[in-house]
């Protein structure tokens, strides 16, 4: 009797542990068994709602220690450090020294992709048959992700790039090109060129989590493509809504009234 109960306890513990472990896969672990999301009225997997990251990627996408005003954090780059070309690593380190004034965020300029995803502000996903819109609270930035369509011909230099989306199973896959070189990847000087090509994946892992991946390819800056991965958490507050962060106007007002 005790022997059987013992096995039962072990079985339940394994099953419970398995369920907890599988709900939010950490970087490097095997993919979770498929979660079946609800569908929108257009038949798409429903990713709608307000989402936000809960990590320190906004400050630094690599492993970093803390400093005044900056929490320590693990990197979100799969495989470790960023594979910079030698000249680019030197440039990144130079950026880092001057980051308080050199970071485009310090001038309230648009954050670009993928940085917009992990700014410490929420964003909302709205889906329709022809496009998926990301409404960011930060600077009320928007991304119109057009479905079933091609990138326009370049050369075009947009801060937020041109986004074209498609579904692969339950994952929204977004191909983004046509960038300026004016945005950074975080507050620590990590950067890209106008050759940046981002492929994002938004995969629902349960009703309140997405797994976000962004594959970065930039042959002018990095020696190879690399991928970042992080969870997105659905904001649960009953009265949750996006408010305003009119960054550039706060700056302008301070400048013009001093």
């Amino acid at each position: 009797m005790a022997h059987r109960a013992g096995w039962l306890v072990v079985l339940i513990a394994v099953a419970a542990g398995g369920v907890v472990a599988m709900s939010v896969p950490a970087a490097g672990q095997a993919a979770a068994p498929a979660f079946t999301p609800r569908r929108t009225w257009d038949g798409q997997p429903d990713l709608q709602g307000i989402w936000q990251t809960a990590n320190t990627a906004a400050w630094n996408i690599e492993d970093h220690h803390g400093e005044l005003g900056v929490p320590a954090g693990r990197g979100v780059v799969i495989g470790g450090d960023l594979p910079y070309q030698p000249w680019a690593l030197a440039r990144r380190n130079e950026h880092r020294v001057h980051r308080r004034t050199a970071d485009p965020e310090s001038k309230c300029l648009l954050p670009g992709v993928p940085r917009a995803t992990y700014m410490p502000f929420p964003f909302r996903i709205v889906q329709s048959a022809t496009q998926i819109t990301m409404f960011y609270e930060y600077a009320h930035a928007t991304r119109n992700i057009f479905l079933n369509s091609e990138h326009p011909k370049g050369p075009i230099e947009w801060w937020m790039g041109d986004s074209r989306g498609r579904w692969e199973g339950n994952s929204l896959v977004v191909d983004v090109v046509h960038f300026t070189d004016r945005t950074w990847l975080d507050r620590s000087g990590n950067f890209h060129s106008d050759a940046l090509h981002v492929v994002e994946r938004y995969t629902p892992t349960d009703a309140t989590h997405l797994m976000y991946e962004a594959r970065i390819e930039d042959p002018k800056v990095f020696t190879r493509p690399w991928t970042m991965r992080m969870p997105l958490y659905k904001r649960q507050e009953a009265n949750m809504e996006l408010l305003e962060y009119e960054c550039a106007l706060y700056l302008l007002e301070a400048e013009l009234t001093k």
Partner: protein
Amino acid sequence: MVVLVVAALAGWLPARPSGQIIYDRGATVRQPRAPAWLREKLNMRPMTTPRTPWGEPDFRGSWGTEEVTSDSIERIEDWLDPATPPTETFIVDTVDGKVPYQPWAAAERTKMRMGLSRGWPGEAGPPMHMDPQSYCVTGIPRITWRDPWLVQQSPGYVHVNIGWGHYYRTIPTDGRRIDLDPSVKLWMGLSRGRWDGDSLVVEVSNLNGKVWFDSYANFHSDRATMTERWTQVRTEQPDGTDRVSIDWSVRVDDPSVFTQPWTMNLPLRRKTPEEIWEHACHEGNERLLEGVKTHGFRWFGGIAPPPADATR
């Protein structure tokens, strides 16, 4: 010279405007606004507002006002320059179609107009304020005629997406209360919607009073509230065809600035759907700050109404 440089910086230079239309003065009649819309609504036809799959009135798609050149909410009597023809008023319920300012507020507007320095009539003063739109700002209700709206809907929400300045509005439609503390003041205010039959009624509160109604210094305070009403209507056109438009109106309530509430009313027409592409307004405006400082324009931080008992 100062005027030309400033106008060029703000993109107003009329002689070689990019994207503006130079009208044939002989051929163009007064541009239609509210009076023409009221006349058109005399020929309304019955319509059933379509529903979204989840049963809310369906406003999805691209909608926009007709050509709005000067964006003056009051009537413009005569040509201001080759790109700015005379227009009707947006205002329907003051008898004269003018904004019903209290005397102190009318005086403020006159002062601000004199300081616009665009070389238009009445702008003879030294630079005072630039139209906040020059700083890539829009607001309620000015966003209505800024650019076409892409309206998306999800259950319980109407989302307005415009390209200009990558602005958007998120309007809950479940009739929830205005629950944000009045001390919280927003550029775009807080929008709260509810369905009234097939019409969307939107209450806008928590405004910061730093946005103008138009480029003519028409303003309100941070105590203003606004109530919009959106209704789809079908009207018969002169050629016998039907046209569906949004009958859009906004009532402005600001007893500290105006002598009465007043209402603007315009049609939003269906627009050919187009991809909304990036408008990185602030990013392209980096030189503006230098020009503003050089020419002595001051930040418009809103106007505080005088205390009610100012005579004491």
